[in-house]
C-alpha cells in the first residue's frame, strides 16, 4: 500500500520526462521506450557484474531507476575481468568493464556484444615535492613514460626542467609508485603511455596489470596515495575522482594539441567530445591522447556490455530501457554530482541511434 503511490507518481514523472524529451524523437520510438519497462514489468530484475570504478554511479542509477520503474538491477562490482568472464559465460544479463573486450574475447561470444559507454574516467599523475609551490607540474607523454621506465631518474632532469621553466626542481631521486592490483586505472594509464612512447609500447604494453620496469606497488588508489604522500620525491597515478576528493596535487599533461591540460570533469568530457566515431562504431574506442585543445589526454570510457542478438527478448528490452533512461539529462546530472565526467551530447545521440531508443 505504501509503495504504490510513489510508484505511480514515479511512473507519471517518467512519462513526463519522456514527453519533454521526446520532442525531437519520432513518436513510435518514444512509445517503445516508455512501454519497455512496463513490458519487463515492475519488479522485474536484472543482474550485472563487473568494473569497480563506476560502482558508485551505477549503484545510484540502479537505485533511482528502481524507484522510478520498479525494475530491480543487481550489480556486483567484482572487477572488469570478472565482469567480462561472467558476461561470456552468460551468468549475468550484462557486464561492465573499464577496458574493452579484445577481439578474441568478442569471438568467444560470437560477436554477440555491444559496448555501451556510460561515464568517463581519467587518471592523474600525482607527486610529492613539498619544496614546490601550489602550481602544478607539467609533463608530456614521453617524459612520463620515461619516468615510469626508469630512464628519467631524478627530478632535476633536463627534460623535466624544459617542461617546467622557472620551477626549481629538486636534485632528488624519483620514486615511482604504481598499482599492484589489476585495475582499469592501470589500463588507461598504460594505454596513454603506450601511445606516447614507442618504447613503452614494445617493452611494457598496456593492460589492467603489466610488468612494471621499476617502482613500488600500492594496493588500490589509497595504497598508491599513501605511498606517494609518505615518500618525498614520489610520483604515482590515481583515479581522477579519488585525486579530486582527496585534494592531491595533479600534474598538467600536454595533449596532442600542445596544450597543458589540468584534469577536471570538463576537460575529460572534452576528450570524449573530440573523438570522432563512425556511425557504426562499436564504441571500443580509446580516447587517450584525443584531439581537441581542451581535451585531457589520460581519459577513457567505461562500458556496459550488452547482447546485440535478440534485442526483443524481455531481458534485452529491460536493459535497453534502462540505458535509454541513463542517457537522459537527469541521469547524466547524477553522474556529474558524483564527480564522474558525463558523456558529451554527440556521444549520447550516437548511442541512442545505435540502440534504437530515444
Amino acid at each position, binding site marked *: 500500500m505504501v509503495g504504490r503511490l510513489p510508484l505511480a507518481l514515479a511512473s507519471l514523472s517518467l512519462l513526463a520526462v519522456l514527453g519533454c524529451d521526446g520532442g525531437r524523437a519520432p513518436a513510435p520510438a518514444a512509445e517503445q521506450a516508455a512501454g519497455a519497462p512496463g513490458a519487463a514489468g515492475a519488479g522485474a530484475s536484472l543482474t550485472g557484474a563487473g568494473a569497480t570504478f563506476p560502482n558508485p554511479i551505477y549503484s545510484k542509477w540502479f537505485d533511482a531507476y528502481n524507484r522510478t520503474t520498479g525494475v530491480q538491477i543487481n550489480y556486483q562490482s567484482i572487477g572488469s*575481468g570478472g565482469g567480462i568472464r561472467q558476461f561470456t559465460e552468460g551468468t549475468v544479463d550484462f557486464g561492465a568493464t573499464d577496458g574493452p573486450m579484445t577481439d578474441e*574475447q568478442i569471438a568467444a561470444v560470437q560477436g554477440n556484444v555491444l559496448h555501451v559507454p556510460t561515464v568517463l574516467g581519467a587518471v592523474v599523475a600525482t607527486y610529492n615535492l613539498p619544496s614546490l609551490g601550489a602550481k602544478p607540474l607539467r609533463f608530456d607523454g614521453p617524459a612520463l613514460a620515461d619516468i615510469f621506465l626508469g630512464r628519467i631518474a631524478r627530478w632535476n632532469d633536463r627534460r623535466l626542467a624544459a617542461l617546467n621553466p622557472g620551477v626549481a626542481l629538486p636534485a632528488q631521486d624519483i620514486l615511482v609508485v604504481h598499482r599492484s592490483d589489476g585495475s582499469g586505472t592501470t589500463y588507461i594509464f598504460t594505454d596513454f603511455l603506450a601511445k606516447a612512447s614507442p618504447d613503452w609500447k614494445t617493452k611494457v604494453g598496456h593492460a589492467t596489470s*603489466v*610488468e612494471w620496469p621499476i617502482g613500488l606497488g600500492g594496493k588500490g588508489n589509497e595504497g598508491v596515495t599513501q605511498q606517494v604522500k609518505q615518500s618525498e620525491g614520489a610520483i604515482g597515478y590515481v583515479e581522477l575522482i579519488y585525486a579530486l576528493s582527496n585534494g592531491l596535487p595533479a600534474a598538467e599533461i600536454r595533449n596532442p594539441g600542445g596544450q597543458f591540460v589540468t584534469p577536471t570533469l570538463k576537460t575529460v568530457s572534452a576528450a570524449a567530445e573530440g573523438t570522432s566515431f563512425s556511425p557504426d562504431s562499436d564504441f571500443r574506442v580509446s580516447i587517450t591522447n584525443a584531439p581537441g585543445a581542451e581535451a585531457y589526454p589520460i581519459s577513457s570510457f567505461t562500458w556496459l556490455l550488452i547482447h546485440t542478438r535478440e534485442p526483443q527478448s524481455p531481458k534485452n528490452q529491460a536493459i535497453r530501457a534502462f540505458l535509454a533512461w541513463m542517457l537522459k539529462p537527469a541521469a547524466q546530472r547524477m553522474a556529474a554530482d558524483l564527480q564522474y565526467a558525463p558523456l558529451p551530447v554527440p556521444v549520447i545521440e550516437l548511442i541512442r541511434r545505435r540502440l534504437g531508443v530515444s
Partner: protein
Amino acid sequence: MTALSERELTPDAAAPAKPSLERGSYSDQIFKGLLTLAALAIPLLLCFLVYELWSGARLAIGKFGFDFVTTSTWDPVTEEFGAFPLIFGTLISSLVALVIAVPLSLGVAIYLTEFAPKAIRQPVAFLLSLLAAIPSVVYGLWGIFVLIPILRKSVFPLLRDVFGFLPLFQGAIYGPSMLAAGIILSIMVMPYVMSVSREVLMAVPNTQREASLALGATRWEAVITTVVPYARSGIIGAVILGLGRALGETMAVTMLIGNRHEIAASLFAPGYTMAAAIANEFSEAVGDMHLSALAYVAFVLFVVTVVVNAGARLLIWRVARGSGIGSKAL
C-alpha cells in the same frame, strides 16, 4: 560408594543394555553413517580443491611446465609467467615473521606459566589472544599509517647503521618491504604461537620442575634444561601453526610488502608473495593464460604449504620420538 559402582559393573546390571547394542539398532547405523560421511567430507573437499586448482592451472602447466617455479618474468601483456619471486617472497616473509615471533611468544609463554604472578596470567593471555581476532585488513591499514612511517624514519635507518655490513640490511629504504611485511606477520602470528606453547608448557607435570629444582637448579635453569625440552615437540607444533598462518596471509602482506615481482638480497627491498599476487590480480585478470597462471600459483602455494607442514611434522617425529607433551596431538 565402592560397592555401588561394583554392582553397576556386574553383568547383572549391564544386562538390559547389552542386547540393544548387539541388535545394532537403525539409529546406531545411521549415526555411524553420518559420522563417517562427515569424516570423509574433509578429505573429499581437499581432493576436489586440488583437482579444481589443477584443472584451472592446466593451461599454464602445459605452457610453462616446471619452469614456472624457477623463472622470474611476470608479464600479463605478453603472457609470460614465472613464479619464483613469489615463492621466494612467501618463504622469506614467513621466515622473518617466525624469527621475530617465536622468541617473543615463547618468552611470553614461559613468563606466563613459570614466573608471572597468578593475578596477571589470565588477563595477559586474554589480551594476547585478542590480537588473533583483529581482521587482517586492519593490520594492513595500521601497518600503512603507523608502522611504516616509524620503520622508515627510525627503525630501518638504525638497522642499516648497525648491521649495514650484512647484505640483508643494505640499499634504499622505501618503507614497504619484505621486512615490514615480516614484522606485521610476526604480530599476527604471535597469538597463535603464544597460546599453544602456553598450553603445552602448562601441561608439563610439576614433578619435572620439582625434580629439577631439587637437584639444585635455579628457576631459570629448570625452565631451560627441563620444562622446555619436555615440551619441545608441542612448541614446534605451535610454531608450525604460526607458519601455516604466515604462509597464507594475504591482505596485510600485500598492503605492506611493496608488491615488486623481484628477488632482492636486502630485506629493505620490496617483494611479493603468492597469496598477495592472487588477491591482487585475480579480479581484473582478463586473459585465459593470466587466470590459469594465477591458478598455478595457488596450486604451488598449496604444494609449498603441504611440503612445509610435512617437513615440520617429520621434524617433530624425529625430535620427539613419540615422547613429550603434544607430540601425540600432532
